[in-house]
């Protein structure tokens, strides 16, 4: 089937400089490590990366960061990679910090065609600065805008050749949301099976969201990231 690509390079052909890219994962868990690795070899820059963290120092998205390919990062927890803070202090990267519930809900809203939504999270804090505030039934809320992107790079456990996806334990995290909110969605998986082999009741991401699938070559193990 046309969705299955032979290499990460082929899958990433459409990615260009200046793109907004959603990248799944909670730290390295559930991060599309093969696609990220290929992105570090691709001649692109000025990227906006939407991801909970920007990898770890020198790992995952941390490599892309150190190559100065990231113009802006949008996430909830940059503390886990000290290089992000150093770059920010030197004025080499823009950052937008969002509460984790807002980050995930904004991506969900983007995928569902909403413009934004009101939330109580962040009201009265520094992260509410510049955001519209309104009262609904006596409760204060702030407006958070939906997030949409050019590309989503996600990690799932299994795909069928149509692009249906199932996930594995806490490696699911942001991936199913990101699959809904980008023009081009590329998934890397441990195993690709024939249609009919995945239980329809277990499919988390239906195939209409997915544009390309590759087999994962870089995987997270107890010993760290290894090539397979």
């Amino acid at each position, binding site marked *: 089937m046309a969705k299955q690509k032979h290499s990460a390079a082929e899958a990433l052909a459409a990615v260009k400089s200046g793109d907004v890219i959603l990248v799944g994962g*909670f*730290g390295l*868990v*559930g991060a599309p490590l093969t696609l990220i690795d290929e992105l570090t070899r691709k001649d692109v820059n000025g990227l906006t990366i939407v991801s*909970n963290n920007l990898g770890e120092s020198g790992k995952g998205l941390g490599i892309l960061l150190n190559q100065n390919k990231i113009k802006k990062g949008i996430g*909830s*927890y*940059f*503390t*886990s990679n*000290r290089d*992000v*803070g*150093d770059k*920010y*202090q030197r004025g080499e990267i823009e*950052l937008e*910090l*969002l*509460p*984790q*519930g*807002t*980050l*995930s*809900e904004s*991506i*969900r809203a983007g995928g569902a065609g909403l413009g934004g939504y009101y*939330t*109580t*999270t*962040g*009201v*009265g*804090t*520094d*992260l509410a600065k510049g955001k519209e505030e309104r009262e609904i039934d006596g409760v204060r809320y702030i407006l958070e805008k939906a997030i949409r992107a050019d590309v989503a790079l996600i990690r799932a456990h299994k795909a069928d050749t149509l692009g249906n996806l199932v*996930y*594995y*334990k*806490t*490696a*699911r*995290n*942001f*991936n*199913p*949301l990101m699959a809904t909110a980008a023009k081009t969605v590329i998934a890397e998986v441990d195993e690709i099976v024939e249609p009919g082999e995945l239980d329809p009741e277990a499919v*988390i991401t239906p195939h209409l969201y997915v544009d390309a699938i590759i087999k994962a070559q870089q995987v*997270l*193990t*107890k010993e760290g990231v290894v090539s397979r």
Partner: protein
Amino acid sequence: MTTQISKHDIQHMIAKRVAKELKGPLTVNLGIGIPTLVAAYMEDDSIYLHTENGLLGVTDVEEPDVDPNLVNAGKLPVGEAVGASFFNSSDSFAMIRGGHVDVAILGALQVDETGVIANWAVPGKNIMGVGGAMDLLVGAKKVIVTMSHTAKDGKSKLLKECTYPITSTRSVDLIVTELAVFEVTDGKLRLAELMPGASIEDVREKTEAEFIEQ
């Protein structure tokens, strides 16, 4: 008499005291740091642990069963309980923001005398992580804070007013340090209990915030 207690012992003493506070059935979310130690002291098997990265039913895990794709909010390996479920990040935060989590246990950098906390940023330093803290403060039915009573420089972390950016305008419900347990009622701190080995003089000396003694 001043006895020097190690950081490890302080953290475990606080965790043990918080565990006593939890009576099931409850859904409890544990933050990073001291809160993760609370699980080891819980004896009630009708307490279900929720972790923001998508698991209800967190348990401890022994080395041979460690799975790199099964972690808690602090990215440490965990196990899955009988009856556990996995879900995506927005479902996880819908549980939190929608008021479905009973108790959140969080660390804090500072607490003011109305129970408002600061725990996500230090001005001028590279702490740029908010994670799920703001979501838990608006959504959890009860919030318990665990922290050392004083900062590394010896200054009180219970202040008249937070000098770091606040996490929410909502007051927490209970604060447990190595010296004392404070309850927050009607926007005031009340000393509920002295921790083992602590004296009221210690607490007065190391607490800048006003509190009610009784």
